[in-house]
């Protein structure tokens, strides 16, 4: 399933682009939220809870809950549900709270 009409956010669905998720090449549409592209590609686990390391997925989808925080182009704690997808992005599952310096 792909988010086409978001009830709150508006975004321009651009041309098909490639990006890297945890080392694997994936496809999505430029401008759609990164998490939307991952969801459409069947990725359900976006992060892990900080104390018990339980899987966390798409939840509020509007940039509030931090359930979808990921490392994108080297920056930790990016809210992938509101981050527009770009050609060639590197998206990684974040370990723990994220390393600012790594």
């Amino acid at each position, binding site marked *: 399933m792909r988010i086409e009409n978001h009830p709150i956010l508006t975004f321009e669905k651009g041309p098909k682009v490639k990006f890297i998720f945890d080392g694997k090449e994936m496809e999505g549409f430029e401008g759609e939220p990164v998490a939307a592209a991952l969801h459409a590609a069947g990725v359900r686990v976006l992060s892990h809870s900080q104390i018990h390391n339980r899987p966390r997925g798409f939840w509020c989808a509007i940039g509030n809950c931090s359930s979808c925080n990921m490392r994108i182009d080297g*920056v*930790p*704690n990016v809210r992938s549900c509101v981050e527009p997808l770009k050609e060639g992005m590197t998206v990684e599952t974040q370990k723990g*709270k*994220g*390393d*600012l310096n790594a």
Partner: protein
Amino acid sequence: MIKKKAHVVVIGGGILGTSIAYNLAKMGLRDIVLLERQYLNSGATGRCGAGIRQQWGTEMNCILSRESVRLFEHLEEELEYDHSIEFKQKGYLFVIYLEKELEQFKKNIALQNSLDIPSRLITPAEAKEIVPHLNTDRLLGATYCPTDGHANPFHVTQAYAKAAELLGTTIHTYTEVLGIDEEGDRVRGVRTDQGTISCDIVVNAAGGHAALIGNMVGIELPIYPERHQAMVSEPVNIFQNPMVISLYHHLYIQQAPHGPFIMGQGDPNEPKSFNIEPSWQFPLEVAKKVAEILPPLKDLKIVRQWAGLYDMSPDAQPILGESPEVQGFFTSAGFSGHGFMIAPYTSKLMAQAILGEEPEMHIDMLNYDRFASGKLILEPAVV
């Protein structure tokens, strides 16, 4: 229902009020009431930068902070607190940019070392070993004290309050002091919006509001409120051990034990006022300076911003002790932004003074009559 009678009424539910109540109770006093206008920690303590340092420029501030660190080291055990107070000793790194600052820091280090505080002057290269992401451009040097650090002000106040209550102290929150009754030259009671409490001793630990409490017994305490702002980031994995502090930038930045960065800035042009509204300029100004001094922090996201009041005194040292004019009226305020870190020992000395016992250390020179006699020793190391 509010208590009608007490031996001591403490005004203020911050770190000073709760720790003084605890120390009085520990020394055997069972008849203590603590009054707080809002909730515990609602004032300066709950809004402070949570740092603990011994690198000061006056003998009194050095001793009060050194002894407080010794108490912080065992505070959870002493207060039998069920949680962690999040005390850490990973140091304070003062970064120095000006020649005249360097001269002052050399004097401060000599004073601190003479008082057994293990601080030292280091080179920019040594500073970079301690904080690898520090930008050392234009840096002349730094001072470092490894036993400085951090504790969580909410937990520390809560720990003191609970310990005081276990020893019989009554705490009334949401109770505002309206006036203080006197009989001759003695205090006799405290009037609140919940009723009057008759008492023999009043302790003014009202922080930025201390001068208003002083006015209630007709004395002029030279303490005024001054807004200071702070903000905090999302948590990230620990990578900065010490507090980094720059007097030149009026700025401090530390990473709390669970990962967020707490940062604050003093504004030399801040007017005297009770204003605690955060400003929109603050995050912009701080972010710019932080990105310059500690470049990787530019990618941090800020999650919260707030302001609180410093209770400023003319020499940036607290005003402690009994009023010469009004018997039974004690003040413990004017901490000028470092009340949290020196509270454990200061409150102990205050309790000894209140109960008329021989104090471990004389605090007479911090009584407020120092301002009339002109015996000021100005603290130079304040953000």
